């Protein structure tokens, strides 16, 4: 076991796969000589050379389109979009081309590619550099969506994403870059579509993703310590494929469901999970399902406002406590 930052785990995960498969190539703005603007790809150019690690112009449509064309002709490209907000500039390539081509061609075309991106808020970058776009991707059939919360999962899910024969949107959370964690030695692969129960509990299920996982976890500890509430915390890890079993099993045990979502309120992944449980898990439910989200607003840049916007540990604790009380 080595301790790595989430940041270093990104490069480690990519390197593991580039080492293994010469068809894995990396492109993006400043991914090469500069090692990435967040230093997420540091050392890869030196190690794998300019044929495999290519700097591009500011041309997101061309970056994503080129990744698609390369994937359909034998490569396994990994393309970086520097900030996830920039998916909007290339959304046609992602949502209309990459997501749909396999189906439209009845399986003639496979698109083994990964679009990686720095996602999420917390750095006071304002509304155009802080978004959580995982639900944009989840809403589009034909895309797999991954959002790791720990360095080990960064490596393991990156490996699975690169090996996956289908397109994967891989969201690396900016607020977690400096977080450290143990990463298993040797080849590490975490299969897509398996949520992790990161804390067991019996009174309520809290489902979270990426940067909301440590917050949900801390909230659960406080709920236990301060309020005697035993919360189970699930780290989704992937939105597509979605580990519906783990969620439904947990709710059938706890009878109560909360989501903790960084995305703006409407049509997030939480709404999908609520819908799943309100249908298939309805008879297990004891109380209203509650989503704890960012309000439906663009993200403000001032530290004081950004901190208020995102679900905090306090808000999670308070909401769970109050809603459980009400339901008693």
């Amino acid at each position: 076991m080595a301790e790595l930052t989430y940041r270093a785990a990104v490069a480690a995960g990519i390197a593991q796969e580039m080492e293994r498969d010469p068809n894995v190539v990396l492109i993006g703005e400043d991914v090469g000589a500069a090692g990435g603007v967040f230093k997420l790809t540091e050392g890869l150019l030196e190690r794998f050379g300019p044929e495999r690690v290519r700097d591009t112009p500011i041309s997101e449509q061309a970056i994503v389109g080129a990744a698609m064309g390369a994937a359909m002709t034998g490569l396994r490209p990994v393309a970086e979009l520097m900030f996830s907000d920039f998916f909007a500039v290339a959304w046609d390539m992602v949502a209309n081309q990459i997501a749909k081509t396999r189906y439209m061609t009845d399986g003639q075309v496979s698109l083994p590619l990964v679009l990686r991106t720095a996602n999420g808020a917390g750095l006071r970058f304002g509304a155009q550099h802080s978004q959580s776009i995982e639900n944009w991707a989840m809403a589009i059939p034909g895309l797999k969506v991954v959002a790791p919360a720990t360095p080990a999962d960064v490596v393991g899910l990156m490996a699975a994403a690169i090996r996956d024969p289908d397109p994967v949107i891989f969201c690396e959370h900016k607020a977690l870059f400096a977080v450290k964690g143990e990463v298993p030695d040797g080849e590490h692969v975490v299969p897509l579509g398996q949520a992790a129960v990161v804390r067991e509990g019996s009174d309520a299920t809290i489902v979270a993703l990426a940067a909301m996982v440590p917050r949900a976890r801390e909230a659960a500890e406080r709920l236990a310590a301060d309020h005697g509430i035993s919360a189970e915390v699930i780290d989704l890890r992937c939105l597509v494929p979605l580990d519906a079993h783990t969620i439904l099993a947990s709710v059938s045990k706890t009878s109560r469901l909360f989501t903790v979502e960084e995305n703006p309120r409407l049509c997030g992944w939480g709404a999908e999970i609520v819908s799943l449980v309100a249908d298939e898990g309805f008879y297990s439910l004891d109380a209203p399902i509650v989503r704890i989200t960012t309000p439906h607003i663009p993200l403000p840049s001032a530290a004081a406002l950004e901190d208020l916007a995102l679900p905090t540990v306090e808000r999670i604790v308070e909401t769970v406590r109050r809603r459980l009380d009400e339901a008693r």
Partner: protein
Amino acid sequence: MASAPPQIDRETQLRMYRIMVDCRTFEERAQELFFEGLVRGTTHLGIGQEAVAAGVAAAMRNDDYTFCTYRGHNHTLARGVPMAPIFAELFGRATGLMGGKGGSMHLTSVKHGAMGSYAIVGAHLPIALGAAWSAQYRKSGQVAVCFFGDGTTNIGAFHEALNMAAVWKAPVVFFCENNQYMEYTPIREVTAVEHPAADRAAAYGLDSILVDGNDVEVVHRVAKTAIDRARAGDGPSLIEAVTYRHGGHSRADPGKYRPDDEVAAWKARDPVPAYRQQLLAQGVGETELEAIDGDAREAVAAAEAEARPAPEPAADVLETQVWTDGGSAWRN
């Protein structure tokens, strides 16, 4: 692009003629079948533009890649894709080229190098660049050819793809078929330069290449030069071929926004009979050409006969082939 034009051998000439006649015959029948209600959804014909598809295809290696648009029947046929599955796709049948999932606008046959027809204007230029980059990386010697219209030169993806292809010296040929209209609007009314592609080549450090798109031999020569260049590692080209579609933009559009005399003048320059005349003048026998014409009629009739009785897609294919495992499961 000044090198002396190489002679085109007889075999290639006849191959190009055959492609043009096949395309024309196929599409004329497709149009009739659209009006009969057999072709559903929409259809965009390339009648009048066959010289481009034929001239370029005859300059390609079998393993080269074609990327084209919703107006892609000709380019797809030109790569040797059989007619019956194309008809079946147009009819929405189970035996369609993509099993009825794609439709007229998305014809694809990867095994023929027909890497897809794209229906969002401009999207396939970056994708073609990507295939070229892949060929470059794999040192396979393959070239990607990307066809698009005049209207496509005004969308952002065009610009991004051209610049990146030039910087990467990618083996890709961007081929603009300037048929002078974007749907119903004349291209000159919405474009800041006279030649929407050729006048922009310099913006990507490329030569300006403007040719007659109705002369299949001219097209063939310019395409061959560009493809050879790309294969040799000398980077991309941008070619503008001026041509005209005889009919409307799509479906039932009668194309009434175009002056009658303009239409008449271009129909008088119809590339198919023009090439027939040219070949006759060069000593090709009438019977040989008639045989090709007859083959086309027979092939189209046979393809239609094959596609017509094919069943509609079965319900159980609706949710297949979203993923490479053949399924569409998004959850466990």
